[in-house]
Structure formats: structure tokens, C-alpha cells
């Protein structure tokens, strides 16, 4: 009996230490701060997505279902959105200008919607034309994840493009990890790839397979709310929320399985185990993982507007309420630093046309980081 108790305690202790152990490198507070911030626009509760038309003009999504056009700090609502299903973590999500926006005024956005009736909702991708900067026209549903469910959790979503005419977007596992992320016949827990007209590219990794969502590009994701294209390599970087611990940065490549929930560096919110496996054959290891969780949202690479930060990766932290700067050398995260500590829940970070970092901060709006002197 006694040895059982001891064994139990030892198991418990090793479990605690294995999960509570912080991943390196530890986050630092900068010793010198040679930057400050300026508000760009205020009064936006949850500024989820940002898309720059010019340095002075950008589109901003507010999760509750409002699209704003912000011109020199003044916001104006753009009408014409479809009906948005606002529930839990779902609502109006990311927005991006199409690669041909200058000529066509075509933009793309992701949102939680219920287009079929019945209960609940799921994430969808739309295209639309921005008409005279005041309204959306030709609103086109390009992809709608199914089924609709009423669960609050994990809708994604971020949008990026490659140089070859494809759009990539993310949808979270919709709180149904045992069913969705590893099943290619189901939506959720995936990165998707489409042509700009919504058709499925012939060279998508799972095209032609039976009973498969052919729009899927990679799978085994939990809830990706950050995705960006590396400015030099063109490679797609994404991150995703882990459970308690185990937020991940991943390099997104065709057909890859990123392992959720078969492998993870995190545990349940309640403290219980999800799995004791952190690696399995056929599943990708994260490029980097966070323990404890920072609750990452938004992702951008630093430009030469900040000489010291060029090529660094910037990630918003909802939980710790700072922007995280990650210095990468030889494919390894060698340094992590808090930028704008206690600024608020950082929902998004984007590099603007002027090379500056623009942050969407909950309860505030959009601000930009300006180098001093």
C-alpha cells in the first residue's frame, strides 16, 4: 500500500515537473528601449484583422462583426458583410487584400457564419469587392467548413497568399479534437489552400483521394491564429494555441501532419494529461513551442525600419499582454523579449507598408511601434 502511494506521488511529481518546465530560452525584459508607440485608431474592441491599402489607409475587422476602413486615424464602417455568427471565439475574423487589389479592389475575409440554417456555425472564407471605399459588393462564399456546431472554441483564423495565385487560410479544431484535426474527411484543425476564385488547385496534397476535403493543405492543427509569409524565403509560418502549454510555431508545408492531438507539449486546462507523446513518426515537430502558453495571436517579421529587429519574428500574446520578439539564428529561437509590456491583449501584429509594426490590441484599437530618434 505504502509503496503504491510513494509510486503515485513520484509519478505525480514527475508529471508536474515535466509539464511545468519552461521551454528555453527564457523571456527577457529589454535593457534599453529605443522605441515608443503611437495610436493609429482607437475604439475597436477586438481588432482581429488588418489589411493596408496604403500607409494612411487600412481595413480593420472587429470580431463582433464590423468591418472598418480607417483613413488617417478616422474609422468608417464598411457595409455589405454577410450575416456573421458571433459566438464564443467566433465572429468576423481576418481580412486580406487580394494580390490584384490595386486593379480589382478584391479582398478576402474569414468569418464564423451559418449559411445553411440549423444550429451553430463554422468558419468560412469569402471574397468581395470594395466598392468606392464604402461598401462590399460581389460577396462570394468561397469555402464553408461543416458541420455547424454551437461550441465556443477554435475557429482560427488567418489568411495569407503565395506568389503563385493561391490563398491559404486556417480553421481551428472547433473544440472537437478527438474527431476533427486528424481526419482528412472532416473540416477543422487544418490549413486550407485554394485558388483565388475558390476552386481547388490541382496540385493540392490530397486531391483525388476518396472521402477527403481536397482544400486541405496541412492538418493536425489545434487553433492557428497567426500566419505570415517570410519576406525573403516566401515560406509560410504559422503558430497555434496549445492547450495549457504547447503553443507551437510551425513551418507550413504541403500534406504535413502537425500532430494535434496525438502529440503535444501541452496538457489539459484542468491539469490532466492529453497524451504522454511529444513525437510520433509521420508527425511534424514544432519549429518552436511555448511552455507556458503565451496565447499567441498575429505574426509578422521585422523589417529594416528597425535595424536591430530585421528578420526577427514578432508574435502577439493575449495572455501576457505583450508583443513577443523572437530572435532566430541557425533555425533556432535563441532569444525572446517582451515588447510593450502590459500593453493589453495583443490580438494581431502586421508589418505596414512603411515597414513599421502595427498591433491590434483588445479594448484599445490599432497602434504602431515607432523607433526613437
Amino acid at each position, binding site marked *: 500500500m505504502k509503496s503504491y502511494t510513494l509510486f503515485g506521488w513520484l509519478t505525480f511529481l514527475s508529471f508536474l515537473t515535466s509539464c511545468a518546465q519552461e521551454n528555453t530560452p527564457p523571456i527577457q525584459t529589454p535593457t534599453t528601449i529605443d522605441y515608443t508607440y503611437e495610436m493609429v485608431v482607437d475604439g475597436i*474592441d*477586438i481588432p482581429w484583422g488588418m489589411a493596408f491599402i496604403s500607409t494612411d489607409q487600412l481595413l480593420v475587422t472587429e*470580431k*463582433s462583426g464590423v468591418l472598418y476602413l480607417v483613413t488617417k486615424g478616422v474609422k468608417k464602417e464598411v457595409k455589405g458583410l454577410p450575416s456573421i*455568427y*458571433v*459566438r*464564443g471565439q*467566433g465572429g468576423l475574423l481576418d481580412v486580406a487584400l487580394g494580390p490584384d487589389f490595386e486593379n480589382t479592389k478584391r479582398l478576402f475575409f474569414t468569418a464564423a457564419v451559418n449559411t445553411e440554417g440549423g444550429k451553430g456555425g463554422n468558419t468560412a472564407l469569402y471574397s468581395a469587392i470594395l466598392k468606392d471605399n464604402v461598401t462590399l459588393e460581389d460577396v462570394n462564399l468561397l469555402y464553408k467548413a461543416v458541420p455547424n456546431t454551437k*461550441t*465556443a*472554441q477554435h475557429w482560427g483564423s488567418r489568411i495569407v497568399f503565395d506568389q503563385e495565385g493561391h490563398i491559404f487560410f486556417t480553421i481551428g479544431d472547433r*473544440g472537437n479534437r478527438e474527431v476533427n484535426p486528424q481526419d482528412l474527411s472532416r473540416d477543422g484543425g487544418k490549413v486550407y489552400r485554394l485558388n483565388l476564385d475558390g476552386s481547388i488547385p490541382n496540385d493540392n496534397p490530397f486531391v483525388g483521394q476518396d472521402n477527403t476535403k481536397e482544400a486541405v493543405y496541412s492538418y493536425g492543427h489545434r487553433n492557428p491564429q497567426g500566419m505570415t509569409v517570410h519576406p525573403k524565403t516566401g515560406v509560410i509560418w504559422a503558430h497555434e494555441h496549445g492547450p495549457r502549454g504547447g503553443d507551437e510555431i510551425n513551418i507550413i508545408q504541403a500534406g504535413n501532419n502537425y500532430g494535434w492531438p496525438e502529440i503535444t507539449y501541452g496538457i489539459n*486546462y*484542468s491539469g490532466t494529461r492529453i497524451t504522454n507523446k511529444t513525437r510520433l513518426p509521420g508527425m511534424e515537430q514544432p519549429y518552436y513551442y511555448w511552455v507556458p502558453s503565451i496565447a499567441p495571436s498575429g505574426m509578422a517579421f521585422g523589417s529594416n525600419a528597425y535595424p536591430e529587429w530585421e528578420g526577427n519574428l514578432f508574435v502577439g500574446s493575449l495572455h501576457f499582454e505583450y508583443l513577443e520578439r523572437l530572435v532566430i539564428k541557425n533555425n533556432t529561437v535563441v532569444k525572446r523579449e517582451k515588447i510593450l509590456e502590459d500593453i493589453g491583449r495583443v490580438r494581431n501584429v502586421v508589418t505596414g507598408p512603411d515597414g513599421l509594426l502595427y498591433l491590434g490590441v*483588445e*479594448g484599445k484599437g490599432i497602434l504602431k511601434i515607432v523607433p526613437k530618434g
Partner: protein
Amino acid sequence: MKPIGLLATLAYTLLLTVLFQGKPLQQSIEDGALIYQDFCLQCHQSKGQGVPGSFPPLAESDYLKNNLIQSIQGVKYGMRGPIVVNGIPYDKLMAPQGLDDEEVADVMNYILNNWGNSAPAAITEAQVRAIERP
């Protein structure tokens, strides 16, 4: 259970439903537990303890006890601005969660009947429906 007992239970449940235009409190609390886990737990934590300074506690919260209507309003429509809970100031945004009136009642009943809280009376769907924007 004997058939007659089952019938009586059914009749009683039906009577309660008709009388109170809502479900039994115990059922409401159970449904509210699921809503809580899905919508609230990440910020307010598994035992309603919150995160001091960031997310106010719901367990033995003086704010909840003294501001029941405002609390229901907050769950229904979202909440903003400074409040003080058990002596600690909070000034965050709680976005509206998109719950329907029945779900708001359920999650309130779950919160008000757990973690040392004592509910004044069951919150009903009709009561939530009547609460307007602040």
C-alpha cells in the same frame, strides 16, 4: 422505478415546466456547467477563481453578490469599464459571447450554485429575456 412512479415524476416535471416556463434548476445547473467549460473557463478558471488583476473571480465574488442584474447584463451583452471585485480593481473588456437567454440563465445558475456561492433564487430564461442593454 414502478411505472406509476415514473408517470408521477413525468407529470410533476411537466407541471413545473408549465408553472415556471423553464427547466428544473438542477438541469439548468448541469447545462450551465457545459456552457461554463466552453465559454468561461479559460479566463475565469476551473473553480471560478479568476486571475487577480486580469479576470475577476466568480467564486465568492462580492461584485456578483451585490450586482446580480449587472452580472447577467454582462454575460448577455458583454461588459467594459472599471469594477472592483473583492478589493481588487479590474478594467478589461468582456466581449459578448453570443449565448441565448436560456444559456445565460443556465450558466448563471451554475455559477451561483458553485464554489461557495449561494444563489438567492434560480435565474430563469424569462428573467434574462427581460434584461435590457445597460
